């Protein structure tokens, strides 16, 4: 597929800018960078260049504003819309793109979970087949995941060509997903993160947010603890994702998508996370220049210093991981009967089950769950997690014992029996620090 000219709508947003960088670098395409405010667009250009660490792409980036949208679109082989996550805004832009799009061109939305089919219907009938969902993860230079969603209107040949382009030319790890709320990666990832947030509330007297992050930290197969991740992404984005899933899907984990009240209050107060100067966590700078991480204490409603928790099970796990003895680390987890080890193990087991279950519903293959979690979240992917734990324990037995209610609703045994070995190396994801 020969894509030489691309329009990216919404480059003043972080994701739009970063995706423009991907097209201009790996894609070696001329990119019209469109935003509402031309001055803001111009200021975004150096950020785009920096996102792929290549000055040489600067000449590929052409700033434009919404007045020139049709002109840019008409000249493009590919149009990528990365505007506000609001169906009205996206529909309006899609209608404008649809009218100007070349017959041979492809169009896509970067929506992280709105209905692709609904947006496709804003296009003229003859162009609906050219429209797809292309969902990348931030920052795309580091995270190669690209979820590709088609609709009932999709042109199969176009779809195959686009998939090839994303994979070969843009070096994306393409995962084909159904047009389902939040697609696959965020559905699995935010099930875990939101349930962690619910647990923070449940265990608020043990410390809450920092307590849960300490229980399922980097030693459980991730770079960042789950609630620190929510703080990084922003509670508003987190809420939008789980609200969308809660309202538009139904499965056995439905209630784990309920956004907790305390977090709702933080959103209302504008305490969204790192981007707003504080949320679940807050970085406090003292007069002497020292910085300190504070955390929101759910039971008092105040910020306090993060507690440096030391749990015997996690301490032992970290030491084993540090020495490269991963199996022994898992033994420490499985054999420990403390409340913290039990919470930790439960989260990891539920993660495996929910991933395999959801991959079948939203993806097209079980390996899709591995790809989205490794390439989109940098978490130990579920099949690799299953494999790692299986060295020291009978995982199906652990699951049956702990979650009889889940086993009643879905055929857990079948999912586990069908699980194939992972192409990912689990060792990379388990860190001893943090």
């Amino acid at each position, binding site marked *: 597929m020969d894509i030489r000219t691309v329009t990216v709508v919404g480059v003043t947003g972080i994701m739009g800018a970063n995706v423009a960088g991907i097209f201009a670098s790996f894609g070696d395409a001329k990119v019209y960078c469109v935003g509402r405010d031309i001055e803001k667009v111009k200021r975004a250009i150096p950020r785009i260049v920096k996102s792929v660490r290549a*000055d*040489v792409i600067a000449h590929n980036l052409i700033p434009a504003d919404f007045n020139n949208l049709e002109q840019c679109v008409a000249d493009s082989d590919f149009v990528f819309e990365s505007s506000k996550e609001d169906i009205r805004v996206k529909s309006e832009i899609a209608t404008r793109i649809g009218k100007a799009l070349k017959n041979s061109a492809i169009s896509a939305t970067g929506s992280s979970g709105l209905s692709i089919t609904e947006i496709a219907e804003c296009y003229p009938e003859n162009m609906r087949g050219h429209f797809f969902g292309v969902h990348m993860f931030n920052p795309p230079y580091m995270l190669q995941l690209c979820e590709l969603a088609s609709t009932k209107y999709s042109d199969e040949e176009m779809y195959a060509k686009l998939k090839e382009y994303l994979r070969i030319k843009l070096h994306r790890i393409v995962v084909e997903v159904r047009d389902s709320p939040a697609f696959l990666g965020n559905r699995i990832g935010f099930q875990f993160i939101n349930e962690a947030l619910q647990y923070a509330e449940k265990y608020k007297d043990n410390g809450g947010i920092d307590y849960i992050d300490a229980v399922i930290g980097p030693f459980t197969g991730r770079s960042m603890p789950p609630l620190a991740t929510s703080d990084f992404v922003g509670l508003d984005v987190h809420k939008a994702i789980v609200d969308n899933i809660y309202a538009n899907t139904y499965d056995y984990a439905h209630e784990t998508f309920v956004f907790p009240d305390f977090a709702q209050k933080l959103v209302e107060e504008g305490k969204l996370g790192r981007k707003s100067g504080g949320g679940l966590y807050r970085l406090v700078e003292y007069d002497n220049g020292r910085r300190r991480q504070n955390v929101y204490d759910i039971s008092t409603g105040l910020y306090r210093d993060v507690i440096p928790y030391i749990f015997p099970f996690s301490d032992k796990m970290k030491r084993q991981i540090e020495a490269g*003895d991963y199996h022994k680390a898992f033994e420490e987890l499985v054999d420990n009967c403390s409340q913290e080890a039990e919470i930790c193990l439960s989260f990891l087991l539920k993660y495996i089950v929910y991933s395999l279950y959801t991959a079948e519903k939203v993806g097209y293959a079980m390996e899709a769950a591995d790809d989205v979690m490794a390439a989109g979240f940098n978490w130990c992917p579920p099949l690799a997690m299953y494999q790692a734990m299986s060295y020291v324990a009978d995982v199906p037995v652990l699951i049956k014992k702990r979650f009889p209610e889940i086993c009643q609703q879905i055929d857990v045994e079948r999912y586990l029996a069908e699980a194939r070995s992972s192409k990912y190396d689990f060792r990379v994801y388990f860190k001893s*620090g943090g």
Partner: protein
Amino acid sequence: MSEGMSKVYILGGAQTDFERNWKKEGKGMIALLKEAMTDGLEGAELTFDDVKELNQENRVACFVGNFIAEKYVDQGHLGAFLTEVDSAFYGVPSARYEAACASSSVAIDTAATKVRSGDYDVAIVIGWELMKTVETRVGGDYLGRAAYYEREGKGINLPFPKLFGRLADETLMKYPELDEKRYMDALAKISAINYENAKRNPLAQTRKWFMSYRQARTRGTETNPLVGGRLAVSDCSQVTDGAAVVVLCSEKFIAERGIKERPIIKGYGHRTAPLLFEKKMGDNQGSEYILPWTRQTVLDSYRRSGLTVDDIDVFETHDCFTSSEYAAISAFGLTKPGKEYEAVESGLISFTGSKPINPGGGLIGCGHPVGASGARMLLDLYKQVTKTAGEYQVNGARNGIMLNIGGSATTNYVFVIGAEE
């Protein structure tokens, strides 16, 4: 090799993922060695129990390649550390070998010699380096000890880029008919090819990075600053954490186990050029080659293997900088000295060319954990000639050659490997 000598086979091995930052993972030398050794033995279809059993009759030994762990991780006596990997190594002869960035080639050479002589039937080579334990400037100073530190390294910021920048200057001076732009563009192309090749290698450090010919030839910008004379960041290999394991064995072991279709080491070369860069350049006056001892090392390996450049299907070279890969092109005999750009411009050395160099990305694309690079090259050649290189497989590769250098092309090591005739 000469008549009557017994053959040395390559059983297999493994490398770690060179993208990994072990410090960030909160892991150190022990974890690195455990993972690399576990994977390496598996790659050679051996187990820790095999090692234990072979050791009962003193038939197995270990050869550790590492440049400067004393600085990076505050540790010496590295041969002994395999006993921390597994109790199977209790009592197994093991020592560390060092020749700067050619450290694991000395380990390979010693291992091969011990197998050839019949002292051991299985020789496990493990090369490793952890370099991300310190910041770039400090690491660059440590690496200065691969040159004559007192005179070429001490107090100089990033001494090695400067030395290889001087190699670029000297190349232009030695071949006055070589156009500067043509030369610099050839270096940029070399960089772009290595990065492009790394995209096909699932264990390459730069597999997700963006690099293009245009970016590589745009030097002196914010994202591609100059680091050594006319050389920019895009001309440099990487700072890498990693390890590579290759297991060698005797004919006896092959026969005993009924192992089939393993390549052999067909020849080697080992020469040491004058240490000081200035003396090195003074020494090349009578030669057509900019690095005559590097060329001689290649010739020695061709003579010992009974092969010529025409017989070689795949090349691994020490592209610590683009200027060293450039010099290697004529040293291999792919072009006349001074005409190396021809092989770059014609596509001869690119992945689809007939004489591909560094199909897995080399030191620039795959990464350069200095003490591991020689073993990594041998492992990659093994993968090529056994048709197990996956996406970076070179079609029809039967024979391969590797050039591993230490310092500013001071220690030169070459191995030729290939299928048994």
